[in-house]
């Protein structure tokens, strides 16, 4: 067991730090809309032009093909430099691209991967449906084969950024007669296709905050050449993507929260006084959060160690379940640290919208309950 980085790693760290310090956008990231899209794409282009886009992507797809240790260093430095979250590009960079790399055709790779990497396009995810959220395998959005096209009819919901996306990773039922996990296909859907309609769904963070959508598909024609993997093998294709989301992709998020917590501790010291905080209830909670945030760093290093040894199993679901709740508690304590003024909703708002937004942490991308099922069944071997 050791925490030593090689001289090459340290050199890489210094380069990453220098570049990030000079290039991380200083402007506040717009919270929504076209302005947010432009911000995220511009930052992605900047990273691409600087040679820092896709640090974890294989070289053959235009990435740097770095080791997991170097990715970890990049994420640490990214968080340390205050790099923005680029949430809108998450699906493209961390879902769609790895899926296409793993299961896509050469033509799909050639067309989509460079556009994602260069910051030209945003993707959204069409998985959840009005009647199928946690029970994803029961999805019903239909697609029938008509010549060399699929014809899609149905609806998807909770589609973050559908109104800002160019492409969508879409799960459709292509064989209604097959057992539920065996009749699904994973397709690339052009969001400008005729027959797609969006209904904005406002979220609880602030009046008028348009974050996700219900998407309706009426006779939407998608070329069969847009199917990733085999027709009816979409469940397996999707599982490889979800595994990725629950594994290493959230590393930088985990590290970023350390800085958020430290800012809150600073505010608490000013408001309550250093001495008071030591044996105060808020002080004890902040200390607990500090210990747990540090532990997340240790967990992240452990994950990296397991990957390096080729022994990463379902343990990653433990980290994800823990981190989503920890982030929620960090956001929650902001209200108590700030005190009465936290019932105000200022325009420049580092705390309240993020706090309200954190209610989704334990719902999106697999609820905490689903995460616990996975831990119980796959890690602990409890019966279904």
């Amino acid at each position, binding site marked *: *067991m*050791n*925490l*030593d*980085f090689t001289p090459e*790693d340290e050199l890489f760290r210094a380069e990453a730090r220098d570049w990030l310090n000079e290039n991380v956008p200083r402007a506040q990231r717009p919270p929504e809309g076209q302005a947010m899209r432009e911000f995220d794409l511009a930052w992605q282009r900047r990273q691409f032009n600087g040679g820092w886009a896709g640090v974890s992507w294989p070289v053959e797809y235009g990435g740097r093909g770095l080791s997991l*240790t170097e990715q*970890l260093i990049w994420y640490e430095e990214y968080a*340390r430099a205050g790099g923005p979250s680029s949430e809108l590009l998450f699906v493209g960079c961390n879902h769609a691209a790895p899926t296409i790399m793993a299961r896509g055709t050469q033509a799909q790779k050639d067309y989509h991967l460079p556009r994602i990497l260069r910051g030209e396009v945003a993707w959204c995810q069409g998985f959840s449906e009005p009647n199928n959220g946690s029970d994803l395998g029961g999805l019903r959005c239909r697609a029938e084969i008509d010549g060399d096209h699929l014809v899609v009819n149905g609806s998807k919901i909770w589609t973050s950024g559908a109104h800002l996306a160019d492409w969508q990773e879409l799960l459709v039922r292509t064989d209604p007669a097959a057992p539920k996990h065996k009749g699904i296909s994973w397709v690339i859907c052009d969001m400008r296709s005729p027959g797609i309609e969006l209904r904005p769904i406002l979220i609880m963070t602030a009046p008028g905050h348009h974050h996700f959508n219900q998407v309706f598909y009426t006779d939407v024609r998608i070329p069969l050449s847009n199917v990733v993997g085999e027709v009816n093998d979409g469940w397996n294709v999707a599982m490889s993507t979800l595994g990725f989301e629950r594994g290493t992709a959230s590393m930088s998020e985990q590290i970023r929260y*350390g800085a958020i917590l*430290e800012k809150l*501790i600073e505010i608490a010291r000013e408001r309550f006084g*250093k001495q008071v*905080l*030591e*044996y105060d209830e808020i*002080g*004890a909670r*902040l*200390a*607990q959060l*500090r*210990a*747990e945030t*540090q*532990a*997340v*760093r*240790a*967990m992240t*290093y*452990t994950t*990296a*160690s*397991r990957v*390096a*040894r080729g022994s990463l199993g379902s*343990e990653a679901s*433990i*980290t994800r*379940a*823990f981190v989503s709740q920890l982030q929620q508690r960090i956001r929650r304590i902001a209200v108590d640290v700030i005190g009465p003024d936290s019932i105000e909703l200022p325009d420049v708002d580092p705390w309240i919208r993020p706090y309200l937004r954190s209610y989704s942490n334990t719902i999106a991308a697999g609820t905490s*309950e689903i*995460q*616990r*099922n996975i*831990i*119980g*069944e796959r*890690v*602990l*071997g*409890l*019966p*279904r």
Partner: protein
Amino acid sequence: MDLLPTEEQQQIIDTLRGKLLNAAPVERLRPDRHGQVGNPDSELWPQLAELGFLGLGIAEEHGGIGLTAVEEALVFREFGRALVSLGILGITLGSHLVAGHDSSLLTAILGGEPVGIASPRGPTTSGTKISGSFHLLDAADARHVVVILPEGVGLVERTAFSEVDGRMSMDSNTILQRGKLDLVAPLFWSPAASEMVHTRAILLLSAYAVGMAEAVLAMAVDYAKVREQFGKPIGSFQAVKHKCADMAIAAEVASCQVAFASIIVAKGEREAVYQAHAAKIVAVDAALKNAAQNIQVHGAFGFTAEADAHIYVKRSHVVDFLAGDLREQRAALIRTITPPN
């Protein structure tokens, strides 16, 4: 960078785990074996000495094995898993205090001579002389006692304590006494501010707590797989499954942090103090919560004397109070101005 045990470290773990399964199965603490009151583990010390598990972190030049806090933390997990008497902490800290100062005493301790622990019952004073009222743990048959204070760790003769008075312990396998020190100069003293013994104590208690948190997780999961109600194993019900998942999360969080902290302590870096406090917070939290959940998963059986579940609850409380309880650990952590990163 690698946070997993090396092959050699895994061998140490496996050897000790095998040894303890045979020589110290948790059943030894059940009422019908050695009696619920009392502690059979001083018989273990010479056996552990023979296998080289005492003095693991003591330099070879002083007669130890010459390994580090990393290996010590790994074996303390196993001690916690098997609920080995906390006298093992007395021996380990005692050997660090005397190493390089008193070779004949070190030889005796590394040979398995018991060393007790003293922990403050309230405010104490230290410096060149220690005063205060203490709990003595597993110290009745010891010549020496390790005193763990906020300011440092010292070694005193057991006879230095006055008004020694036996007490029944909530953790009835821990032999408990009260005793007083009145301006007693310790034989050896390691200040927390400049040396590592105090930090090592916090780390090893954390490791012990991780072992307990993992042990009760395994107990609960094993039981949930076989105990049936409504015609199904109770582990198939989400109410139970999710409890077990929460226990697994708590144990993993603590395990990773203790491993991380042990490496920093082994390096002797200043950051070690912060990392050890963080480790004790998450580890004791995990041990206390998991031990409680384990009783709940076992139902009424978990509430009985012959289920081993209750001993983990009680030992977790004892471990919490040694070298500063959760309240003190949290105060210490929030006192730190800038955390390492």
